[in-house]
């Protein structure tokens, strides 16, 4: 997919994969009751019908899988957007589908608060993401440049944000406001396999679209026009990435709420490992995103178990709390590289 003989990439790729697996096992072990890793792995074979096995299978496994999938989506989308815009400050939120998903989900919460169907919230989120993607496509036109696309995305973002504010403003009670706001903070608790099935089709479609864009992103290091002279169809590439990011980020947000900073910070962290090559970065950022979201979710549960907070901390709050200062540090360190 990407270019260049590398000594740094392959070990990093395997290390990240091992980290994802290890953290997944830890995530399965962790909960109200700690189950040893060995027992977690042998549970489905040794005692498939025990209460412990059901807890692991029905509660902890979907939560872990959703963390991995949403983490991959956010990480790879951030890397793809930054590569496409040739800008290290781009984030997956730019495409508008994230706020569309949030708006859809909040609308569902507002009007029928889960009473109609248990998966109505993520499904409405998914619908919101798809609608905003279509709207951006309609606004920008099919042969638009990257910047028109982003402008359309930003406009849709603003519209969705305004509608969200309106809903909060008109909410019937403080409790409703709290519920809506808490939902947007990003959370992985109490997710089931049905939530996973809702997010999976669009997510996988997005991932597949992103496969094979690595080479075009590498070529765009030299600017859009030179990439075109090298045989790259840049407008097709930008649409492909735009739709892919809309699909997988929309699915992630519809299921988990807004989880900030992963799409921004993870590509930065991984970029030196990829030799700053945007194509190579995609896979590393995907794995890095999974590691970060799993780690944050484990962190949130550890804090809930060992502290006296009145309400559990939301995972999106933790990623933002850890991500923002970290991001500042990264900017200070890499200032010379980008701002000359």
């Amino acid at each position, binding site marked *: 997919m990407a270019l*260049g003989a590398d000594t740094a990439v392959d070990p990093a790729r395997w290390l990240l994969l091992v980290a994802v697996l290890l953290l997944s096992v830890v995530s399965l072990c962790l909960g109200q009751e700690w189950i040893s890793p060995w027992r977690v792995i042998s549970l489905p074979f040794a005692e498939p019908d025990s209460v412990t096995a059901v807890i692991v299978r029905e509660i902890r496994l979907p939560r872990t899988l959703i963390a991995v999938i949403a983490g991959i989506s956010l990480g790879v989308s951030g890397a793809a957007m930054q590569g496409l815009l*040739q800008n290290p400050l781009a984030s997956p939120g730019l495409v508008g589908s994230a706020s569309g998903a949030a708006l859809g989900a909040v609308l569902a919460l507002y009007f029928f608060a889960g009473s109609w169907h248990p998966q109505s919230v993520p499904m409405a989120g998914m619908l919101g993401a798809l609608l905003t993607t279509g709207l951006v496509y309609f606004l920008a036109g099919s042969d638009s440049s990257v910047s028109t696309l982003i402008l359309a995305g930003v406009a849709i973002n603003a519209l969705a944000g305004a509608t969200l504010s309106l809903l909060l403003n008109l909410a019937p009670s403080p409790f409703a406001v709290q519920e809506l706001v808490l939902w947007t903070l990003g959370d992985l608790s109490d997710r089931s396999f049905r939530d996973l099935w809702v997010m999976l089709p669009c997510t996988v479609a997005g991932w597949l679209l992103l496969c094979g864009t690595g080479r075009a992103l590498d070529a765009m290091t*030299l600017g859009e026009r*030179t990439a*075109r*002279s*090298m*045989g790259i169809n840049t407008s097709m590439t930008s649409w492909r990435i735009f739709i892919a990011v809309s699909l997988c980020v929309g699915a992630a947000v519809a299921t988990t709420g807004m989880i900030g900073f992963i799409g921004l910070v993870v590509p930065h962290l991984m970029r030196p490992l990829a030799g*700053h*090559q945007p194509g190579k970065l995609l896979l590393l950022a995907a794995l890095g995103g999974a590691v970060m979201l799993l780690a944050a979710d484990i962190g949130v549960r550890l804090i809930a178990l060992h502290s006296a907070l009145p309400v559990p901390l939301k995972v999106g709050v933790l990623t933002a709390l850890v991500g923002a200062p970290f991001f500042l540090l990264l900017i200070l360190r890499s200032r010379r590289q980008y701002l000359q």
Partner: protein
Amino acid sequence: MSISRATRRLVARVSLDVYAGELVGLIGPNGAGKSTLLAALAGVDQDIHGTIELDGQHLHTFSAYERALKISWVEQQGAIHWPVTVERLVMLGRIPHLPAWGRVSDQDREAVENALRVCDCNALRQRRVTTLSGGERARVLLARALVAEPELLCADEPIATLDLGHQLQTMQLLRDFARNERAAIVVLHDLSLAARYCDRLYLMHEGTMAASGEVASVLTAQNLAAVYGVSVISGCETVPWVVPVERLRR
């Protein structure tokens, strides 16, 4: 052919031929349409009226990758967006040669070594491109275009930011490139170097072709006065030279 953009006609009814083994110079004042014409020839911009043929075949019948295998284009002050190493950046030029999902072959590596050597970039290979000077960047970007081993090289002001030594080195490199089955078109502002290295010249003026042909027939005092609005003195001792003297009132 003609090229228009947003109601303005940038290049009107020009015709340009390049034959194998030729180094062709494209000269003219700022805004004459040289870069626009060159980008159209390289297939970067598609909105042109007229025809471009390569080996007797319409350029638009080639797929983008086939075209990229035959024509390389060096953008004027081309951008480099990420701090990759020089070696990796030059390797990007091999993209048209790579099979889908394929990996880099020994042949690709050899081409990179070759391009780094002829562009005098060997000492820079591990440097981050963001730490390079303007002239070093220009050399690296030329190496990126050469590494594709094209039949036609379209270089837009490749020597504008180079020092004297590297100007000569780059012109000689283009001269050596344009042999046998290969050819190059170069946009230049240095008329002395154009006279010395190019086989033929095209002189553009306000989107049209003011003169074309052998060097001596293009670089006449009348032509340069009409197009650039300057009087020149020129001669040929050891090497040909053209020096502007003063702006003419018009």
